[in-house]
């Protein structure tokens, strides 16, 4: 597959792995957070960790839209779908996310709610056009990558005068979440040495919004593509910055990301959305100015207004470590539920649901390493 295979070339990977091995300082550890679930998925699916030296540790970040959506908002969506007038359109990933009291969209659908899985906002728009008697609500989630398409769909709905289409907006912002992670960092042992920066998000917002990471927190960021070679090269670039005592915002993903990003997309977002005062993130809690709502000019398409949605915060399962895992403070295997009570078939927390979630990625791709480790420990004792 042209333009894809090149970024998964095993020979090139061996070369980068050898360079990393040669350049790491064996006297120290390197703790990097890959911010995005896309990176987590690539690292797990291609076995990138097997190709890194032992003192380079990858911490999974919060960049998984499904994972950070708090329980209260899923509860809202389920309540919304229970309205017999409503057709709720959503991405398939969200269907199995556990809500309060063991509910989920999948169960709500089985109980008779009209919930349809779509691939894009435009699919939802088409359903609204084809079925004017239904109140079609698009459950919008995601970072800046998926926000411009939602903006376009809302503008199209307005142009077409579609009265039966609205958006339940849960779009969140990346740089502010990154700041929340860095501000909330714990002791020396869990401190990050650098960040593998978002790929698709950065195509929209550019490299500029991450500058505070270097100026305020003295840490390097390397914006990285989602292919395994991209990730490895970005890790090498981070190691080099640290070894040279630098902290800069560097861009590995030059084939798609510019310094200023996609200005047209930014303009659409600015026009259609406005900043929320505050928004709850699973794992990070309430984060001020971290999410978007529909701007006043598009209030007619705001499902929260149309259906008078008032989110009630709901607690995660107390044993679930998704919060700490999303902050990078714990690993999936640190959670007592992982692999026992919480599996992809019976997820207790959101990180086990989306394929971009750290728990799901580790469960689906990486568990054999736990066994190997257990064996090594058994053999040693």
């Amino acid at each position: 597959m042209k333009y894809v295979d090149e970024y998964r070339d095993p020979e090139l990977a061996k070369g980068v792995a050898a360079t990393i091995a040669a350049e790491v300082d064996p006297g120290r550890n390197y703790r990097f957070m890959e911010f995005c679930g896309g990176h987590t998925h690539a690292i797990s699916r291609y076995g990138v960790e097997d190709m890194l030296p032992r003192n380079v540790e990858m911490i999974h970040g919060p960049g998984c839209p499904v994972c950070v959506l708090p329980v209260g908002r899923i509860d809202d969506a389920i309540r919304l779908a229970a309205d017999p007038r409503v057709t709720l359109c959503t991405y398939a990933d969200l269907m199995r996310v556990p809500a309060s009291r063991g509910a989920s969209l999948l169960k709500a659908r089985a109980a008779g709610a009209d919930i349809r899985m779509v691939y894009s906002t435009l699919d939802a728009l088409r359903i609204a056009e084809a079925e004017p008697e239904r109140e079609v609500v698009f459950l919008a989630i995601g970072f800046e990558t998926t926000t411009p398409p939602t903006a376009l769909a809302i503008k199209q709905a307005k142009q077409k005068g579609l009265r039966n289409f609205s958006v339940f907006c849960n779009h969140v912002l990346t740089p502010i979440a990154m700041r929340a992670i860095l501000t909330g960092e714990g002791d020396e042992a869990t401190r990050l040495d650098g960040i593998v920066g978002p790929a698709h998000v950065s195509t929209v917002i550019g490299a500029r919004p991450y500058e505070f990471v270097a100026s305020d927190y003295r840490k390097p960021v390397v914006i990285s593509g989602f292919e395994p070679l991209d990730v490895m090269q970005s890790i090498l670039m981070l190691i080099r910055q640290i070894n040279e005592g630098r902290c800069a915002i560097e861009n590995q993903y030059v084939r798609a990301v510019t310094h200023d990003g996609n200005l047209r997309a930014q303009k659409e977002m600015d026009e259609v959305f406005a900043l929320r005062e505050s928004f709850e993130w699973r794992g990070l809690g309430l984060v001020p100015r971290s999410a978007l709502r529909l701007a006043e000019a598009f209030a007619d398409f705001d499902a929260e207004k149309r259906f008078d949605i008032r989110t009630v915060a709901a607690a995660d399962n107390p044993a679930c470590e998704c919060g700490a895992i999303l902050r990078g403070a714990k690993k999936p295997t640190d959670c007592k539920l992982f692999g026992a009570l919480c599996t992809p078939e019976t997820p207790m927390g959101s990180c086990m649901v989306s394929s971009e979630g750290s728990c799901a990625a580790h469960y689906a791709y990486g568990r054999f390493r736990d066994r190997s480790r257990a064996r090594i420990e058994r053999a040693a004792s």
Partner: protein
Amino acid sequence: MSLVMKPVRRKLDMREGRVDLSHGSGGRAMAQLIADIFHDAFDNDWLRRNDDQASLDAQEGRLVMTTDGYVVSPLFFPGGDIGSLSVHGTINDIAMAGATPKYLSASFIIEEGFALLDLKRIAQSMGDASRAAGVPIVTGDTKVVERGKADGVFISTAGVGVLPDGLSLSSDKARPGDAVLISGSMGDHGVAIMSRRENLEFSVEIMSDSAALHGLTAAMVGAAGDALRVMRDPTRGGLAAALNEIAHQSNVGFTIAEESVPVKPQVAAACEFLGLDPLYVANEGKLMAICAPEAADALLDAMRAHPLGREAALIGHVVEDERNFVEMTTRFGGGRIVDWLSGEQLPRIC
């Protein structure tokens, strides 16, 4: 599917006509539907007797029996339709035991309003598939349900086959050291279906691999004999599900090399685009076989000599593993598990 009543004189309107509730009522309309569509398409001595059952000669060896329901959407897809699929799928379930498929039955649940022309096309396709495979459809049933209670047509087929004495393949027979082979590229059927789903607007030149595999399995049994331990057609859940099931049933693990698993470039591209993994996508004309290591070369040669196994490949081995993991060396050079598919990757694929 009996036909004791004299059919009504006027012909079925194959151009504009639709199935209505009278076609399932047991009256003349039903008799005409059965005669003009099903008997016409499946024609054989058993059906011509117009009995409610088929009496078959007792067979030497052991009988193998299977049944399968088909609800694929859309009904027609590149490389096949629900009719041919319902013949191939059931034949393959019998063939995977190493048995020779002999007879099929077919049962139809048809939604009121379904176009007679489409029903005719589906029946003809079933008849063609059954004749090409040499496995006749000897008995059947038709029901019509009200509009909205089904989706066009659902088909159930059952099959009977014969297993020669001495041969016993089963999913609990994989042993550490055994070789794992597949007969060709993975994911073709699932992607062909997806390319025709209405809410997906991409056109991929890819055909379903839907095919009857009993010729291939006969050649494999001939080449490897009782060194053949397990055969499985990786349908729903793809190769990943098949490997995980066998890992559990045999209480073993697998090591697989990703680069040895053939995937067509179009299928890989479509999967990339949709965020799917070809290892989890359904196949309807491929099989996976596990055999004693010393028989692997002969088996691979026999597979490659058959038109449906030309791209056969050795993809890995059975290993001892109490956790029953399927481990894979990625093309990239790292390691990962190939886990069970969780949730529904794509409903109504077969």
